[in-house]
């Protein structure tokens, strides 16, 4: 009798298994909502649109972008955390919403690790260490020496938490202090740098590329581990400060409990797109590094980043809210 009961129990179980598999087989059968917690037109939004457009073609569906900026990406993140884990709601998140926010907000309304399942990384965004024209330093080494000789006298600017963390980490690892000026956005800070009202900042290539070419600003180093293909003449900070690697990143997550098969399909599509020449060129020309990973790799990376960002933000003197 027990065996009979077992057989009966197997029926619904196998039906569920079959239907999940069937679901994965049929996926995607309709447009997929992609929540992007940045404002439209922001560099990460552009990347999300570009990449998802290509991936959608591979998967035979379209990705509908929904911009939900706010609270450093928390608002968008929470929406996806509580969404149906059927693979039709995903999020392109960043080191803000899925790492730094855990430190920044004491009572975060979602759990960046438990409420989500990683799909794949998308890009890594290193910053450039940029100085105003007229500052007497030819490279990073000279700059650090100069800054130490004028300890506390230089000023720097930041327009977002990424550049804040980067510059603070740089200063703490090399041992000098400078006066911090905060701006609402990176472009505003760049204006003051151009005019020489601040001495240096860390900023993404996108915001300073043209000025570098015109010679009105000088980039000394890049904060990724290795040089960028697009900027072969700019050494990494790690060449002067061993082990230095601070990058922003964006990656795709799905709500927790999204079936593995669906995650696998998404991962394959997006990593294929990320490895294509078209996307590589797109990213490199904007100073970004393609970042394809397996779900597991992303998960491990995220955990490491949570720790790293907490450290950096604490060092930078940012208080938890």
């Amino acid at each position, binding site marked *: 009798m027990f065996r009979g009961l077992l057989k009966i129990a197997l029926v619904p179980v196998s039906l569920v298994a079959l239907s999940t598999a069937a679901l994965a087989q049929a996926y995607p059968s309709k447009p997929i909502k992609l929540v992007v917690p940045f404002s*439209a*037109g922001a560099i990460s939004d552009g990347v999300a*649109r570009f990449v998802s457009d290509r991936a959608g073609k591979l998967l035979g569906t379209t990705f509908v972008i929904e911009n939900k900026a*706010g609270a450093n990406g*928390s608002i968008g993140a929470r929406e996806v955390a509580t969404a149906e884990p059927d693979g039709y709601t995903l999020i392109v998140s960043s080191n803000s919403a899925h790492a730094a926010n855990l430190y920044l907000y004491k009572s975060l309304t979602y759990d960046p690790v438990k409420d989500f399942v990683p799909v794949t990384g998308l890009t890594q965004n290193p910053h450039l260490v940029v100085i105003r024209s007229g500052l007497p330093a030819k490279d990073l080494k000279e700059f650090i020496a100069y800054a130490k000789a004028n300890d506390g006298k230089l000023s720097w600017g930041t327009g977002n938490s990424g550049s804040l963390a980067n510059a603070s980490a740089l200063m703490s690892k090399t041992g000098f202090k400078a006066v911090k000026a905060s*701006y609402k956005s990176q472009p505003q800070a760049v204006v003051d740098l151009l005019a020489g009202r601040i001495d240096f900042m860390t900023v993404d290539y996108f*915001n300073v590329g*043209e000025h570098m070419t*015109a010679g009105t600003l000088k980039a000394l180093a890049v904060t990724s581990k290795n040089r960028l293909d697009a900027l072969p003449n700019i050494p990494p900070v790690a060449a002067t400060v061993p082990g230095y690697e601070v990058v922003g990143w964006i990656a795709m997550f799905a709500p927790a409990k999204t079936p593995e098969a669906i995650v696998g399909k998404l991962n394959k599509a997006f990593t294929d797109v990320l490895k294509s020449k078209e996307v590589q060129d797109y990213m490199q020309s904007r100073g970004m590094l393609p970042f394809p990973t397996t779900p597991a790799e992303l998960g491990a990376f995220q955990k490491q980043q949570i720790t790293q960002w907490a450290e950096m933000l604490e060092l930078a003197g940012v208080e938890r809210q």
Partner: protein
Amino acid sequence: MELLANLTHGFDVAVTPINLLYCLFGVTLGTLIGVLPGIGPAATLAMLLPMTFSLSPITSLIMLAGIYYGSQYGGSTTAILVNLPGEASSAVTTLDGYQMARQGRAGAALGVAAIGSFVAGTVATLLLAVFAPPLSKVALSFGSPEYFSLMVFGLIGAVVLASGSLLKAIGMVLLGLATGLVGPDIETGNQRFTFGAENLYDGINVVIVAMGLFAFAEIVLNLDHTEERRSYTKDVHGLLPSLEDLRRIVNPVLRGTTIGSFLGVLPGGGPLLAAFAAYTVEKKVASDPSRFGRGAIEGAAAPESANNAGAQTSFIPLLTLGIPTTATMALMLGAMTMQGINPGPQVVSKSPDLFWGMIASMWLGNAMLVVLNLPMIGIWVRLLTVPYRLLYPAILLFCCIGLTSLDNRAFDLYLGAAFGFAGYVLLKLGCEPAPFLLGFILGPSMEENLRRALVLSRGDFAVLVEQPISAAFLLAAAALLVAVIVPAVRKRREEAFHE
């Protein structure tokens, strides 16, 4: 002459069938967006971004730019018709434009708005063509001390805006300042006055404030018959501005254009500051300032010219420095980079097609807008003759959808209703919303710049007067203050004398 050659080249680029088509599409859509309350160019640009993938860079830029300044035109329409600034910069147009509509002169108001905007657009486009590089240097010369002084000047001017009690206007500015503080502090990232509400973590969106204080409050007030309120007149006195009207607006339009062209270049200045600076100037040079706020045609023409001129010149820092002056500009920048265009100091020499084509197209767009908008005036005016009890639910509905389109959350609507209530109470107490809005927008910027100026000067206040531009604005602010207080004090003395 090189300029002529460049402009000709630009027109060659702009007058291709496809570019003309997308220019027309852009300005039409922009006007529509401007008229629909709450749905600003930012939301529209966001929606249309995917479309730009399939277009060539210059075509998509022409379309996006058309949407941007087209929405300025549309925003003036709602400001005049229903006291709702479709764009924040149209808030000043409501002061006299809406009053003109209530007196049955909506047609004249809409007409001068369109004409003033066109003249301003033409002049500003020319300035763009000739002075782009030097003007961008101006943009660079404004640092934190200069912005602070500019804001102070602006806030003192906000007090001048009010046609009623001076003290209450100051109070409203202060109230607006305080409301503007809600949200994250720039320097520390800490929240102020948000009381743990996550929805307030990015501050309060200006659209919600404008919607509630201006449009919603006005609807409630109109329904409130306990007030002795001149009813919305149905008689329409002519559809277009008269020759007399046109004669009166010549100088205001010129002044407004000049002010707008200059202020639009400043990142952080833009059309709004330009509009109300122009209004303030008009009020001060007028022979009878008491007409302002009650339907003075100059009070509608000047800000309209200013905000359109500002909208055009705000492309200068965008194209030559790659610096967006507003959120909408940031979107355009994003669109440009997606197309592989990197604006910057060399955009004029590296992409002449783009630069001159855009300039030519801007002028064409302005021309299209006038041709589009003038005939529409008849339709708008006729719309106003619909009985109010049928009109206001429709207005309400469009406003609500507009608010939803901001961030897709119900909270914004609740907040809008709350501001509507606050606006109603304040209006009943004789306090006007315009100074509040200006305090709300300028205040946080003023504080941010002051603190940053002090940080960079290591705590030295002298930097505010040592820098020439900053000193100039502070002096002007002081002069404005005196010019405002002296007549008021004199009036009080007369009142006391008579009692």
